């Protein structure tokens, strides 16, 4: 009666697998050198040689897209890891410390949620010049408050159930209780959230690259490919279509994987976001 769960998990995993595989394979092999510029070969239509044709500099589009997957996945991965660790720690600390600390952490998340994320990224770019690291920091900044809030909420819920029990069971320190009871119970929430944040990270990375704030050439990036293709709409509309589709596939994949994981872990988590 419920065909959706396995379906979204399977489709999500398949799409994510495709993107990650493309990213990994591009480390050792791409059909062509994605940096090789040959203006005479530009705007070639798809062929056996160039499966999706070539771009405005005569570079192979498939190779560019594969290497672009690498940028997207790498930035999203590092950013979500960073944002997830920092945010989750903040959430756990807030939940277990309570009182002033909790208030302070929550106000901090209020503050960062009130700060327009895109503006932050633009300013960061203006401050340090655009780079991989800046894109990571900007994206992590966006996800930190989300992690902090969700983890705090989940931790409070777990704690209200386990705390009394644990305290009665023996003289355990709060840190032990945190580690033994809260962390394992909060972990599914973090995992699910991480997948969804991963999808968001890929979208934000694309937007940053689109604005010229992401990884720098010659490292390809879907967002920059899109930005460059924008003026070529009349000449080679396909160049704007491919990277957009890639972004869509990656985001779709991570979202569906997240949905599937969430349903598998606990359907109640749906309310979290």
């Amino acid at each position, binding site marked *: *009666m*419920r065909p*959706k769960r396995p379906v*979204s998990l399977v489709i999500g995993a398949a799409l994510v697998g495709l993107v990650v595989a493309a990213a990994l394979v591009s480390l050792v092999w791409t059909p062509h050198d994605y940096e090789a510029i040959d203006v005479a070969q530009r705007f070639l239509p798809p062929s056996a040689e160039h499966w999706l044709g070539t771009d405005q500099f005569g570079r192979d589009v498939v190779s560019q897209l594969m290497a672009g997957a690498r940028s997207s996945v790498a930035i999203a991965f590092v950013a979500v890891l960073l944002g997830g660790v920092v945010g989750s720690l903040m959430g756990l600390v807030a939940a277990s410390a309570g009182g002033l600390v909790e208030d302070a952490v929550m*106000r901090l998340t*209020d*503050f960062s*949620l*009130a*700060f*327009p*994320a*895109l*503006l932050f990224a*633009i*300013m960061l770019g*203006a*401050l340090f010049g655009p780079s991989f690291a800046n894109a990571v920091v900007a994206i992590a900044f966006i996800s930190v408050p989300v992690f902090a809030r969700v983890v705090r909420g989940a931790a409070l819920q777990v704690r209200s159930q386990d705390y009394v029990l644990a305290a009665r069971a023996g003289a355990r320190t709060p840190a032990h209780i945190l580690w033994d009871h809260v962390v394992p119970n909060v972990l599914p929430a973090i995992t699910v959230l991480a997948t969804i944040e991963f*999808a968001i990270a890929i*979208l934000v990375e*694309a*937007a940053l690259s*689109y*604005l010229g704030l992401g990884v720098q050439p010659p490292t390809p990036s879907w967002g920059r490919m*899109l930005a460059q293709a*924008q003026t070529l*709409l*009349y000449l080679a*509309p396909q160049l*704007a*279509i491919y*990277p*957009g589709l890639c*972004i*869509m*596939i*990656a*985001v*779709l994949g991570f*979202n*569906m994987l997240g*949905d599937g994981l969430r349903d598998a872990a606990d359907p109640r988590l*749906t*309310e979290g976001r």
Partner: protein
Amino acid sequence: MTRFFLRRSAGFVATLFGVSFVVFWVMNVVPGDPALVILGIDSTPEAQEALRRLLGLDQPFALRYLAWLAGMLVGDFGTSYAFRVPVADLIVERLPLTLSLAMTGMTVTIVLALGLGVLAAANHNRPVDWSVMLVSQVGIAVPAFWLSILLVIIFAVHLRWLPPGGFPGWSDPLGAARALVLPTIALAAVQSAVLARVVRASLLEVARLDFVRTARASGLARSRILWLHMLPNALVPIVTIVGMQFANVLTGTIVIENVFSLPGLGRLVFQAISNRDLPLVQALVVLFATIVVVMNFLVDIAYGVIDPKLRPAA
């Protein structure tokens, strides 16, 4: 109630204060001299120095920040470095466009999301439900700027139904409306996909509650139960997301206005940052933050309006 307002207002002021300080500080350490940006690379150092004095940039950081704060208190947002006119004028000039864009975007989002979400929930686990979910899943994954480009290709370049960008001004209401159609769609598509899922999920959550059975048992029509009984009960999460989305839509206009050449606040903030137009950036960021904070506040108030249990004690 008063206490509730006081506490919220204090948090509100603190947030704005923090935001304004961070922006002021960042804009100060960001490389880029407004005088040089304005006067260009052929200007003489002497002229740049003169302009810096004129703009008050020769004053120390703390003094300038305090002066700015003092100005804010009496409603003076300062004068734009690059435009040489009061910042308030610039904002007042451009706010209507951005707000209308955000409003139409949000309205379309809500209408579309309610329609699709209710449709999906009413047909739970049937093909209609699955299609709505699939469409929304794809919708979430579409980058807004890409969608904007596609919309321009299709509706402006090929079909020529709508203008590709630009804004003729409010004196031409039809033209203004036409200019807002594509940006609105671009803004609303992604957001409504997100919201539709929330609507559906929270409706399904509510559908399990006994009062739905009670309402049916008393003979009420399904559609009436869905819209007047279930939907209000599903509103708390929906309103929460709508509040967050309003902020998203507002920052989303930064990208959208650039793609569609719309003279709104989003374009202005972009220009202001690249011009290192501190007073303008400052005012705009504080404005954005204010709208976000006020939105959160409204959402909290809305909780009380929706659910009598959540009303702050009188």
